[in-house]
C-alpha cells in the first residue's frame, strides 16, 4: 500500500481523500515557491535602488566599512551587555509596580482614596513626560539632592528612570486587561462568597493577565530599545560605545553594529508575540 493512504485508527482513505490531499500538498508547495520568488525579486529591487543612488559610495564608506565593524564590535557588544542587564532588572520591577498600581486603582473603599488619587496622578504625570526627560531628571536631579541613601551610579539611576516611565504604561495595560474581563465573572465570584480581593486574585486577574500578554510583550520590545536612552546620563552602553568609536574614527559603521544587536534582541520577542497572538486566536476559534 502506498504511503499516506492509511488514516489514524487504521482506516484506509478513499481514493477521493488521497487525491484531495495530493492537491492540497501541491497547492501548498506552489504558494511556497511564489512567496520565495516574490521575496527575492523585491529584495533585488531594493538593493538595486540603494546601490544606484548618487550618494551610495559615500554612505557605503561611512556606514558599511567591514574593518571598522570588526574593530568596534567587541566594545559595542560589551556595551550591549549593559543594555541587556538594565532591561533584565527593570522589566520585573515594571511588571510588579505596574500591577500594583493597576490594583490600587481598582480599590473602591473610601479609605483608599488617597492611594487611588496618588496612583492616578502618577500615571498621568509619567505617561505625559517623555522617557528621555525622565531619564535626564532622575539621572542628574536625584544625585543633586544629596539625600542619604540615594544611589549615584548611572546604571541604577537609569533603571529607576526607565521603571518610573514604563510602570505608568504597564499599569494602564493591566487596567485595560482587568476591564476586558466580563462583569459576570466578578458577579459570579462574589455571589459564591469570595471577597473583593479573592475575586480579583483567583478569577479576574488570571483572565486579565492572559488578555494583556501581547501588549505587554510589545512594551518589553519598546523598553529594550529605550535602554539606549540612558547613554545620555553617562552609562557606557552599546549606543555610547558606538558613539565613542564614531567620533574618534569618523566612521559610522559602529552605529550599524549597535542597531544590529538591538534588532537581534527584539526579533525573538516579536516572533514570540506573534506566536502567542496566533495561539489565542486558535483557542478563540476552537
Amino acid at each position: 500500500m502506498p504511503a499516506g493512504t492509511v488514516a489514524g485508527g487504521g482506516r484506509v482513505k478513499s481514493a477521493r481523500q488521497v487525491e484531495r490531499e495530493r492537491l492540497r500538498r501541491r497547492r501548498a508547495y506552489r504558494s511556497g515557491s511564489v512567496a520565495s520568488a516574490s521575496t527575492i525579486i523585491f529584495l533585488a529591487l531594493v538593493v538595486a535602488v540603494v546601490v544606484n543612488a548618487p550618494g551610495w559610495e559615500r554612505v557605503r564608506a561611512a556606514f558599511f566599512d567591514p574593518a571598522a565593524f570588526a574593530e568596534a564590535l567587541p566594545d559595542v557588544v560589551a556595551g550591549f551587555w549593559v543594555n541587556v542587564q538594565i532591561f533584565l532588572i527593570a522589566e520585573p520591577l515594571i511588571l510588579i509596580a505596574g500591577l500594583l498600581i493597576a490594583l490600587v486603582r481598582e480599590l473602591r473603599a473610601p479609605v483608599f482614596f488617597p492611594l487611588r488619587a496618588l496612583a492616578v496622578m502618577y500615571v498621568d504625570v509619567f505617561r505625559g513626560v517623555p522617557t528621555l526627560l525622565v531619564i535626564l531628571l532622575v539621572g542628574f536631579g536625584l544625585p543633586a539632592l544629596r539625600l542619604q541613601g540615594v544611589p549615584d551610579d548611572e546604571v541604577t539611576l537609569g533603571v529607576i528612570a526607565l521603571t518610573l516611565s514604563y510602570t505608568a504604561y504597564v499599569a494602564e495595560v493591566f487596567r485595560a486587561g482587568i476591564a476586558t474581563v466580563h462583569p459576570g465573572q466578578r458577579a459570579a465570584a462574589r455571589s459564591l462568597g469570595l471577597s473583593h480581593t479573592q475575586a480579583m486574585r483567583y478569577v479576574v486577574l488570571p483572565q486579565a493577565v492572559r488578555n494583556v500578554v501581547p501588549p505587554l510583550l510589545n512594551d518589553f520590545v519598546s523598553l529594550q530599545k529605550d535602554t539606549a536612552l540612558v547613554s545620555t546620563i553617562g552609562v557606557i552602553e552599546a549606543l555610547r560605545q558606538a558613539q565613542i568609536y564614531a567620533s574618534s574614527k569618523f566612521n559610522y559603521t559602529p552605529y550599524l553594529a549597535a542597531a544590529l544587536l538591538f534588532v537581534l534582541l527584539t526579533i525573538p520577542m516579536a516572533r514570540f508575540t506573534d506566536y502567542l497572538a496566533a495561539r489565542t486566536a486558535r483557542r478563540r476559534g476552537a
Partner: protein
Amino acid sequence: MTLLRIENLWKDYHGHSVLRGVDLAVAPHEVVCLIGASGSGKSTLLRCVNLLETVDDGAIFLDEEEITSPRADADAVRKRIGMVFQSYNLFPHMTVLDNICLAPVKAHGVPRGRAEEEARELLTRFGLADKAGAYPDRLSGGQQQRVAIIRALATRPRLMLLDEVTSALDPALVAEVLGVIRELREGGMTMILATHEMGFAREIADTVCFLDEGVLRERGTPEQIFTEPRHERTRAFLSTVIASRRL
C-alpha cells in the same frame, strides 16, 4: 417561620424605579417562581437579595437578620446564598473541578481534599463525573449550566437564586437542567427562580409571583395563578405567553 423576608423593596436606576415596593416572604424548603415580562425586574430582585445591588429603600431579612443593613457583612451573607446566572459565568481559566472547589476552599475554609471529594460526589450525582478535568469551553451549554448549579451548591447555601437558568439553552438541553432543579427541590432546597418556562414553573413551584413593572401584582399557588389569575395584568401577560406557545 420564614427564611427570607423582603419588605417594601425599592431599586432605582438613574432615577427610574425598577422595583417599586416589593414584599415577599419565603419559607424554608419553599420553591418560589418569579414570572413576568422582560424588564419587569426579576433579575434585579434576585441581585438585590444576593447583595450584588444596593437597595434604595426597604429591607431584606435572611434568617430574621437584616442583610440590607450597612452593618451586615455582605461576603458572609453571600456565603449563605447560592446564585446561578442565565449566562453560566463559569470561570474559563479553571477546570470544572476547580470551578466547583474555589469557593469552598478559599471562602469557606474547607480543606482541598474534602472539597474535591464533595465536588466529585456532586458531579457523579448529576451525571458529569467524566467532566471533572475539562475546561468550560469544552462543555455543551446544558453541561455548563449544570456545573454552575453544582458550583453554587458546593458552598451548601441556605437559599438558591436561579435567574433564567435555561434561557440560553437549546430546547433539547433544557430538560437536563430542569432535572437538576427538580432534584434540588426533592432535597428540600429553598429556591427562588426567575423563569420564562411557565410549564416548569407550574410543575415545580409552591408559590408563583407575577412581577409587573417592578410591582409584585399577584402571588398564589401555580394552580391559582395559571388557571384563575385575579389581576387583569396577570391575565394579559399569560395570554401573550400562550400566544407565543410557551405555556
